[in-house]
């Protein structure tokens, strides 16, 4: 094929062949960079602090000591990864129904945020926790004890949802 012939426009001079100008050009940018502020974060020591818009692990909102959730099951139906399991039971509180068992399998959860979107009670919301590491599969099943967080802790996210929806 004609095109595949090697085209050499000109022979390189000795200076060009040593690639010294090229290396110096690269070094100029590198050295300039040394005097600019650092962009990186030393992760385990300095933690990244997410803003209220961040979608971390889903949590259940706890208000006055009990969960807001009314066990309607919408979140478990909408979850594309089938990560949520809800079992409803009756209660004397005026919300009438509460989740007897609420479990999110964090190995399945893909942090999509559909559960937060669909919940009619703003009972399940995405927190700002992003460190999700487990040593075995059992640890990854988050039951109510791990899912419930007091409302004060997630107030920033609730405010964000009100203003951006």
């Amino acid at each position, binding site marked *: 094929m004609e095109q595949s*012939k090697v085209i050499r426009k000109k022979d390189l001079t000795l200076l*060009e062949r040593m690639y010294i100008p090229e290396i110096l050009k690269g070094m100029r940018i590198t050295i300039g960079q040394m005097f600019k502020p650092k962009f990186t974060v030393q992760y385990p020591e300095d933690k990244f602090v997410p803003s209220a818009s961040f*979608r971390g692990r889903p949590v259940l909102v706890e208000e006055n000591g009990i969960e807001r959730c009314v066990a309607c099951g919408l979140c478990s139906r909408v979850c594309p990864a089938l990560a949520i399991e809800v079992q409803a039971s009756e209660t004397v509180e005026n919300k009438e129904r509460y989740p007897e068992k609420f479990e999110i399998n964090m190995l399945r959860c893909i942090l999509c945020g559909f559960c937060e979107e669909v919940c009619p009670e703003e009972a399940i919301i995405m927190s700002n926790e992003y460190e999700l590491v487990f040593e075995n599969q059992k640890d990854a099943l988050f039951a109510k004890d791990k899912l419930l967080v007091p409302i004060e802790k997630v107030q920033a996210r609730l405010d964000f949802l009100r203003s951006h929806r």
Partner: protein
Amino acid sequence: MSEAIIAPPISSTGRSLRTEEMIINMGPQHPSTHGVLRLELIVDGEIVVDVVPHIGYLHRCFEKHCEHMTNYQQVIPYVDRMDYVCSMNNEFAYVVAAERLLKIQVPERVEYIRVIMAELQRIASHLIAVGTYGIDIGAFTPFLYCFRDREMILDLFEMTCGARLLYNYMWIGGLSHDIPVEFVPKAKEFCGYFRKQLRDFNDLLTYNEIFVKRTANVGLLPADVAVNFACSGPMLRGSGVNWDLRRDDPYSVYHKFDWDIAVGKGEVGPVGSCWDRHIVRMAEMEQSIRIVEQALEQIPEGDVQSAIPKRIRPNPGEVYARTESPRGELGFYIVSDGTGTPYRIKARSPGFVNLSVINEISRGSMIADLVAIIGSIDIVLGEVDR
């Protein structure tokens, strides 16, 4: 083309040496195959005689999975995970297809925001392509700068929808969140900053003599071969074919902006070389900046969720919609049987098609050049295998 090169070398005594072909595996854990791609190489010494790509290590049954969703909206998080470095563009293609199936007209503001997001994502994706291509060739520094600038784009996305990589942002009929007020000034600031940065990248990598030498005469893909293999995106444009779906099969509001299509011109060697594909990506980033800047200026007011249907039940029928993703033509073919679940979804992924030409363009090259060729195709195995 390769006969002259493969002819056995002549020894000093004038007799030809006996050579033997050898099969070696490159990958699936090879750093330069950009993921889990296995290439079966038939080599004669250092010369590549044949390449057979073996794919499927990352197959996640995306298409089958979609048939078991409870509704059309739930497919979107899975679409994100197809080509994980340009999720926004994947979502864009899927929602365009679904909206054509449902015959929804989305508000202007939604279209503008989608275009802004898609173009920013295109820059982010090309930054990865360019940065890792530098590593393949042996230039480590540009990679770090590319990732730093990409991080700024991800910050913009995080500010908007809360995720940095897999967004679930574009929904059928709208968006999950409106853009925050700080987004527009920040994005404008980024555009200004990134223009300067692009010049640096060109100095550092594109016109670097070493880089040019490694890529200019390597992996030549003539235009007719590219068309016959259905290549698309920078692969096709690098061969000098002026074809971009944003202009040639218009969708969304791309027709309202003033921008150019970058094609390879053979500046440093024959047209269709690895360098041409690289320069097309560099030029495309600049054009994306132009589109983003114009869109940020013109963005209208409105509600981004008003057109989201409460219940998605398309009439029985089928639709194919294609969009220009950073890698080329990304199309979704959706068949509906009238229920709330898609009957069949087929994704036409550009990476898969572009990869198929590798055998054609790497025959007769050296093994070291093969690394440059794979890098210039810019595959993402998540999308090749789905």
